[in-house]
């Protein structure tokens, strides 16, 4: 085994090492938190699509995302049901309504209305109540995320939706919208009567379930046939619709740009801190590097030292940064936000941290290449 000058030299000055690692850790935490929050928000943008057990979604033409629905005749569902390969199809209304709160304030709610919720796996996390009861009267389920905007509520209490007094008969969890507007669940026909001017005889989506075991080719064929029969609608696969809904927020609002800028700034801060500390360290160790050259080492030997030091800083900073990001998760959850850090993103950030640190070390490489080993003779 060879003597590890890189590690020993790096750890020799512990304060400098801590500063270097902290710089990387800060950048890594920033990237994890910013991107994790972004992914959390995006997850809200398509969380209902992901959970609803539909293979295809029929929407009105050019609907930008699941929350911004437009109406079309609810009879379209019959044409969809007649398409060979369709096992079942149902209307779904997603509609923004105003809710009068006991305090006198008005808030918004995003209504999801179906004839039979249990067939489509929505809501997927029922905390209290029986969805079958929705058909029995002026009832609705409300997601727990509404507490933040509506104040606390209990099953059995009433709220006024679009001027109609409705009873809360159940609570759900995890049903979110991108805009954080609370989601409520109402029977389909009742939803149409809530706002007859806009919704009578209308729907906003048709959910389509194909026969079990349908492969990609069959799904594409059914999709094409529905599109042919409903020329004034759009048809998406579940994945396409989820992507379209997420992309709307990324591309049409500043949130995507905001994330990219923050990630860029995080990386920039990391690079600057690492480059600065490595460069200063290189300058302070010039004589040592000159000695390495004088005793027969080449630039490559010194590049290896700097590269290894940068990699150690990257790994140390990554671990510290990742731990800090994970430690922030409970606090972020408490304020009703999600920090989603998928394993593949962890791997990307790790590689990014190493590349960032090696890039920072390159600045020192240039200095090292110009070291004159004769400097070892200077007193």
């Amino acid at each position, binding site marked *: 085994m060879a*003597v590890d000058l890189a590690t020993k030299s790096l750890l020799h000055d512990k304060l400098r090492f801590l500063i270097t690692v902290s710089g990387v850790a800060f950048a890594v935490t920033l990237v994890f938190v910013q991107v994790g929050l972004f992914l959390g928000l995006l997850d809200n943008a398509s969380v209902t699509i992901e959970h609803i057990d539909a293979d295809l979604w029929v929407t009105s033409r050019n609907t930008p995302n699941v929350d911004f629905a437009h109406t079309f005749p609810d009879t379209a569902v019959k044409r969809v049901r007649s398409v060979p390969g369709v096992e079942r199809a149902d209307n779904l209304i997603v509609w923004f309504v105003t809710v009068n709160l006991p305090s006198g304030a008005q808030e918004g709610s995003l209504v999801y209305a179906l004839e039979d919720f249990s067939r489509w796996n929505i809501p997927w996390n029922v905390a209290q109540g029986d969805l079958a009861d929705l058909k029995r009267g002026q009832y609705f389920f409300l997601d727990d995320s509404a507490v933040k905007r509506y104040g606390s509520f209990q099953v059995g209490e009433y709220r006024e939706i679009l001027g109609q007094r409705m009873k809360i008969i159940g609570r759900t969890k995890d049903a979110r919208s991108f805009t954080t507007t609370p989601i409520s669940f109402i029977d389909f026909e009742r939803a149409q009567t809530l706002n007859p001017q806009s919704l009578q005889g209308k729907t906003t989506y048709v959910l389509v379930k194909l026969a079990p075991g349908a492969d990609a080719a069959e799904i594409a064929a059914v999709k094409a046939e529905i599109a042919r029969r409903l020329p004034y609608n759009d048809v998406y696969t579940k994945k396409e619709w989820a992507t379209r809904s997420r992309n709307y927020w990324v591309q049409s609002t500043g949130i995507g740009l905001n994330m990219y800028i923050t990630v860029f700034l995080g990386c920039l801060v990391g690079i600057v801190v690492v480059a600065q500390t490595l460069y200063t360290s290189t300058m302070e160790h010039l004589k040592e590097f000159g000695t390495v050259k*004088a*005793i027969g080492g080449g630039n490559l030997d010194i590049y290896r030292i700097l590269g290894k030091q940068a990699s150690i800083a990257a790994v140390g900073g990554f671990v510290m940064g990742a731990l800090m990001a994970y430690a922030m998760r409970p606090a972020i959850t408490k304020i009703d936000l999600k920090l989603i850090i998928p394993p593949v993103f962890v791997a990307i950030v790790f590689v990014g941290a190493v590349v960032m640190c090696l890039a920072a070390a390159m600045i020192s490489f240039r200095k090292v290449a110009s070291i004159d080993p004769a400097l070892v003779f200077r007193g």
Partner: protein
Amino acid sequence: MKTVLEADSVSKDFREGRGDVVSVLRGVSLSLSRGEIVSLEGPSGSGKTTLLSILGCILTASSGRVVVDGEEISADRPARLPAIRKKSIGFVFQQFNLFPSLTALENVEYALNIKGEKGAAALREAERVIDAVGLSDRRDFLPRDLSGGQKQRIAIARALAGKSPILLADEPTANLDSQIGGQVLEMFRALAKKEDRALLIVTHDPKVRTVADRVLRIQDGRLAAEGLAA
């Protein structure tokens, strides 16, 4: 005795900022054999360090011929110089130039690693030379915990490690007091003789004469005199 270092009519010119050419060495010729100890003396600015740098394959000569351990040094192949340094030359510096984060033993072992020797063989060789300079009990000390004399002995051990036939020392006693400097020189001489290495010591220190077989004197870039040591 086998000649391991040869310089024939070596000159070195440097170009200054305004384009003026300064001749630092002018036709220097010398040779060094295995087991021979030579002292190179001269005032500041006489060209001692430049000559040492050329003989140590750190610089190349503007003209003349340099042969190190049988290999002629060519200015056209600068990439070859580190390999020659690695194989044939051990340096001892005025400022010791030990790596502060490595222990005494690791300093020697690292030099061996650079020379291509690794693992147990490098450790054994490092232990051998540390023992030879009498610092086995200090092998795990960092340089900051060693005295000046001990540091220079470790530097000598580093130069000896790897069996390089040529040892070049730049003012090895300049940072040591007279008594310690004398002891270090005696030990250096004994080890160079015992291990049959050629040793060239560049110095201002008159004590070096007492351990040298020959004394060379350089002035204004020329070897002014050569003679046996007193």
